[in-house]
């Protein structure tokens, strides 16, 4: 099979799995997850083959694997549908395939496959546990998710969207994959639709990303009208880029390239939950944890960053756009990190951490650090997927404890209810520790250090001191809240009975953790800068060479400077140490000095948006449209028409229908018939001989008439 054919086939197995599960195997849980995981495995296999083949090609950036067919005719050109694997795609495909496969596998364990059906579980609500009798006494065990098959169908479709987005060679199919994921994220966040909070979160996520998507669609439309094509390879030629850079757009003094870049970037702001469209992502934690991992690490939010990285040649044409990108990224990185410090829900901390880390990538892109952005995108996908899956494992273990004690008031996601879990859940603890250290950028060993250090080095080296300082503070806070999380969750002694009875999760959940932990450490080693003291040059800086080749101009590696390195060391280690120091003895939220209501309530952004957008929208619909327009104006008109028609009707009835039709035609006919009948009834004498006499007379008369007329 040629590589091009293989690339076409990569996205298809999960889509096929979706249809198979929905149409045929919905009843069988085992068959459904076999199909879904098998499909993920096929896509993974295809991706790995493509990745390996891509490694073997020299100058892949100039001669990528590509293939396309005409799709929709538009005037004299065609909108094409096609695939493209250049170094960037290959690198992204690698981590997407791995994380997707791991998440699929993890979901099997997370949804309690192999456990009995719950005592009173309902579709649309999380499983509550089942009572079983063993060794003569009853106890409660986790129960299987009631909508198990449906979950695998959805994540299959989701994976299809992501693979489509990654391998597509033009913005249109990328946008198609993008929107498929948008839909799936809505469906999956609202997976437990029986909970009002999940429903609201799903709607919120969908509506918020829609804002970004509309702008993105505008950007795509503008790009198409300006260049006549949406294929990356055709847009990123020197002359097209030059034209785009020189046409003024007439908006804010931006060039066409600048405006297109800005519009596309707003799409990313929605999808990757950047300020000010970040509000949906923490709420999206209502979904099952594998979904959180998928949406927040491997696929959807990465897709946003992937898109801006992909469109980097256009975005980088206009300095104003780049400045906006850098500002939004850096601001989000710091802003989200400060909120994460005050969150107590284990998944919400990670959600804000994700927003913050995505800010790092966006900021890196905004200062032109292309390779660093890709690097951090990949390492982040690995360690954040690991952390989310790890947190899911922790929650699972805690739920086990809750089932054991039967006290359902204990929130298994609240970190203050945990503590000491390192002994109960050793695999989860060690992998979570690796993921946490990678997130904090623990020096030298972890992947997060190398990617984050590269961003900082680029910011410093290119003279963006403001961005550098912001990101450094954000990195410090990242390390701080990560250590806070690890300390509260795993270290110390159990703070509740539930935590005492927590249990390690099954192999389907721990295996993905171990594999992802492996990448969270080793993936950093492929991108060690060549001028790094001692270690530089030991391993060639493969990532820079490979991914850098995507661009027409190979990006220069930034010159080595000790300051960003020292900063990286200090903020990572300092943050980790500070986090441990502060939280090692804290046992309740009351003792936590950082539970500032301002941070805890996320700077009141939800409330502000509620006042600015939601309340007016409700006012417009309920008061303006419903009460005034509909009930007042339109119903008013109707209330005029109603009586008018009624009056006309009763006039016709009284003046025409009743006298003419009823009295004259109706009753008249009846009266005449009645009178005639009355006269005629005297004939009915009841005397048989009279009747016979009549009959005889008629017979003779008829006979005579017949004789006279016919025979004579």
């Amino acid at each position, binding site marked *: 099979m040629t590589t091009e054919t293989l690339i076409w086939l990569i996205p298809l197995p999960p889509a096929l799995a979706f249809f198979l599960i929905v149409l045929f195997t919905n009843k069988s849980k085992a068959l459904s997850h076999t199909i879904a995981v098998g499909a993920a495995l096929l896509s993974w296999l295809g991706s790995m083959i493509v990745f390996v083949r891509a490694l073997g090609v020299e100058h892949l950036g100039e001669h990528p694997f590509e293939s396309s067919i005409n799709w929709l005719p538009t005037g004299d050109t065609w909108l094409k549908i096609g695939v493209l694997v250049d170094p960037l795609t290959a690198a992204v495909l690698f981590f997407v395939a791995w994380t997707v496969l791991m998440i699929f596998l993890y979901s099997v364990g997370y949804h309690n496959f192999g456990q009995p059906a719950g005592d009173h579980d309902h579709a649309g609500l999380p499983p509550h546990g089942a009572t079983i009798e063993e060794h003569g006494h009853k106890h409660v065990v986790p129960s299987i998710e009631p909508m198990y098959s449906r979950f695998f169908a959805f994540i299959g479709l989701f994976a299809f969207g992501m693979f489509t987005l990654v391998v597509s060679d033009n913005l249109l199919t990328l946008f198609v994959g993008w929107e498929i994921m948008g839909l799936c994220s809505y469906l999956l966040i609202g997976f437990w639709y029986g909970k009002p909070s999940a429903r609201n979160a799903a709607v919120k996520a969908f509506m918020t990303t829609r804002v970004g998507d509309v702008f993105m669609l505008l950007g795509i439309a503008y790009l198409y009208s300006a260049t006549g094509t949406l294929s990356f390879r055709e847009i990123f030629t020197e002359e097209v880029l030059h034209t785009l850079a020189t046409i003024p757009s007439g908006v804010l003094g931006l060039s066409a390239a600048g405006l297109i870049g800005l519009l596309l970037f707003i799409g990313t702001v929605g999808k990757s939950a950047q300020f000010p469209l970040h509000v949906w992502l923490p709420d999206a934690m209502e979904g099952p944890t594998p979904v959180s991992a998928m949406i927040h690490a491997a696929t959807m939010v990465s897709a946003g960053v992937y898109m801006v990285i992909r469109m980097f040649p256009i975005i980088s044409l206009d300095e104003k756009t780049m400045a906006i990108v850098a500002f939004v990224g850096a601001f989000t990185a710091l802003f989200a990190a400060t909120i994460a410090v005050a969150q107590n829900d284990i998944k919400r901390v990670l959600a804000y951490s994700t927003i913050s880390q995505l800010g790092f990538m966006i900021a890196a892109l905004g200062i032109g650090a292309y390779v660093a952005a890709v690097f951090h995108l990949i390492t982040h996908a690995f360690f954040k997927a690991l952390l989310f899956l790890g947190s899911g494992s922790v929650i699972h273990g805690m739920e086990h404890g809750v089932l054991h004690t039967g006290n359902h008031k204990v929130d298994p996601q609240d970190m203050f209810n945990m503590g000491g879990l390192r002994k109960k859940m050793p695999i989860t603890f060690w992998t979570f520790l690796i993921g946490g250290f990678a997130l904090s950028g623990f020096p030298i060993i972890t992947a997060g250090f190398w990617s984050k250090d590269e961003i900082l080095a680029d910011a410093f080296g290119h003279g963006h001191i403001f961005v550098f300082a912001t990101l450094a503070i954000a990195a410090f806070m990242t390390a701080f809240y990560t250590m806070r999380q690890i300390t509260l969750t795993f270290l110390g002694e159990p703070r509740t009975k539930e935590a005492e009875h927590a249990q390690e999760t099954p192999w389907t959940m721990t295996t993905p953790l171990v594999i992802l932990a492996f990448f969270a450490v080793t993936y950093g080693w492929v991108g060690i800068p060549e001028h790094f003291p001692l270690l530089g040059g030991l391993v060639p800086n493969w990532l820079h060479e490979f991914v850098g080749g995507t661009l027409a101009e190979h990006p220069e590696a930034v010159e080595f400077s000790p300051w960003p390195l020292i900063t990286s060391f200090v903020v990572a280690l300092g943050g980790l140490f500070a986090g441990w120091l502060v939280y090692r003895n804290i046992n309740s939220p009351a003792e936590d000095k950082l539970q500032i209501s301002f941070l805890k309530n996320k700077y009141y952004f939800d409330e502000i948006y509620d006042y600015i957008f939601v309340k007016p929208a409700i006012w417009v619909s309920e008061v303006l449209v419903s009460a005034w327009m509909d009930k007042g104006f339109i119903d008013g008109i109707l209330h005029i028409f109603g009586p008018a028609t009624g009056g006309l009707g009763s006039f016709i009835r009284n003046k025409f229908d009743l006298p003419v039709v009823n009295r004259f035609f109706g009753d008249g006919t009846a009266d005449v018939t009645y009178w005639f009948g009355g006269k005629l009834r005297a004939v009915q004498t*009841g*005397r048989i001989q009279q009747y016979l006499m009549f009959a005889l007379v008629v017979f003779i008369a008829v006979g005579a008439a017949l004789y006279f007329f016919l025979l004579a």
Partner: protein
Amino acid sequence: MIPLSWYLILSAALFSVGLFGVLSRRNAVAILLGIELMLNSVNINLVSFWRYGDVTQMAGQVFAIIVFAVAAAEVSVGLALVISVYRRRNTVIADEIDLMKW
């Protein structure tokens, strides 16, 4: 041989006598008798047409037998009705049995 028309004249005369009886007699039993006369005049017709037509075809005689059977049945039903009416209303005068009057 006596010409066919004589039989037909006899038959017509008999039919007219029967019809007159049916229309003019007041007694219900007499009306039934009139009906019998009319039926038998028809029988004369049937048999004489058979005799003067194709003798090998038995249809005329068969019809005559069927008419006997019908007449017997009709008379028995008719007399039963007359008896039933007499028991209830103590009369057999047709004019007085005018229950079906308007």
